[in-house]
């Protein structure tokens, strides 16, 4: 089953500031007003949208998860997550390509500061889009007496980026104007992809990171402030 949707996102200035690396400090007043102006501009250039495909989880092994439609994801983490789920939502989300075009234009003119601020605002916008998508999927899951997991994406943890190809077999990225390059990079740039599990998950389900991850030292979840070892899967 394919679902597409658009969302309205509000870009939170404090999040953009955090993404620019301020680590809790305040930007100078001139930086702050430039950041505000760039958020304003970004808001006018984005078209947040998503598409997802619901598939049954057929079987899992320690290394692999097999889904309806002859899909096979190779990742211990994804497999661990999906072994506890009946279904999975395979998704891509994007804010569209207009921001990329504006950034290229600015870089050509040498306006690196403004391009950098638009870049951070765009990242926050796509992160919000993903957040809203997950909320929608969780609502759907709850209506059926289930819960949705957090999202897992090819290229993170032990899920190799080349697995984007498998994901794109199932999800029609083109419907949102998303193309996958040979290096498995999505165009437009501000796009995300991944899987969200749906199942009868109890709040105590241990996070996969604790159970099966072998890359805890370089955990990106931790770097962005979500400590998977302390929080359950939900």
């Amino acid at each position, binding site marked *: 089953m394919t679902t597409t949707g658009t969302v309205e996102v509000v870009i939170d200035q404090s999040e953009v500031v955090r993404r*620019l*690396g*301020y*680590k809790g*400090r305040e*930007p*100078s007043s*001139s*930086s702050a007003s*430039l*950041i505000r102006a760039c958020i304003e501009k970004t808001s006018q250039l984005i078209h947040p949208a998503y598409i997802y495909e619901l598939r049954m989880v057929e079987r899992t092994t320690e290394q692999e998860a097999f889904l309806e439609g002859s899909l096979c994801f190779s990742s211990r983490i994804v497999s661990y997550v999906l072994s506890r789920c009946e279904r999975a939502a395979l998704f891509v989300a994007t804010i569209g390509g207009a921001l990329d075009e504006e*950034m*290229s234009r600015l*870089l050509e003119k040498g306006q*690196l*500061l403004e*391009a*950098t*601020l638009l*870049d951070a605002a765009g990242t926050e916008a796509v992160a919000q889009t993903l957040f809203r998508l997950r909320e929608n999927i969780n609502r759907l899951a709850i209506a059926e007496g289930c819960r949705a997991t957090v999202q897992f994406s090819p*290229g993170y943890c032990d899920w*190799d*980026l*080349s697995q984007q190809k498998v994901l794109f077999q199932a999800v029609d990225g083109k419907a949102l104007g998303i193309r996958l*390059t*040979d*290096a*498995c*990079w999505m*165009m437009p740039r501000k796009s995300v992809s991944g899987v969200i599990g749906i199942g009868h998950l109890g709040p105590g389900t241990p996070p996969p990171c604790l159970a099966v991850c072998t890359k805890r030292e370089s955990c990106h979840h931790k770097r962005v402030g979500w400590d998977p070892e302390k929080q359950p899967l939900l």
Partner: protein
Amino acid sequence: MASYEELQQGVITADEGKVEDLVRQLLAAGNNPLDIIARGLTAGMAIVGQKMKTGEMFIPEVLASAHVMAKGMDILKPLVGDKLSSIYIGKVVFGTVQGDIHNIGKKIVSMLLESGGFVVIDIGVDVPAAKFIEAVKREQPDILALSALLTTTIPRMKEVIQALSSANLRDRVRVMVGGAPVTQSFADSIGADGYAPDAVLALERAKQLLD
């Protein structure tokens, strides 16, 4: 009377009008343009780099300072003529490897390298090994800098280094690598000479590579 310290402050606070005024005043007072660059603009940017390292300034402020410094340079460059090369500390050819179209990280590092006294030749994104080799032959840089954002494209860095060896150019240029998935141990494993996780440290590392 305008002073170098004031000019440095103008760079640190990224006050474009003030920097341009001070540069003109210092020139009018008979100061050497090369001194204005070294003791005013570059010295100001060096303080900015320090402040970024200690967490007092962040990328947007640093980029604003670098931009203002470039504005000051625009006034001074035509007056320096062919003595300009004497203020450059080294030359860098910079590109993002084949298959990778990531640009902004490379641009940020380039800007910091330039503000620290390097000449940077940006040869773009999605650059095949052969084009890096051509650029090294043509430009004869001190440093070849490679950027990549993805685990699927960082293997191209090794190919570039191998292509340098095949072309007998490996000992003529230092290779510096960086980008989100690159680590010091990856850099070591492919035989790169330097790595840095961010732009300020990239400038520091590039300077070390010149010694």
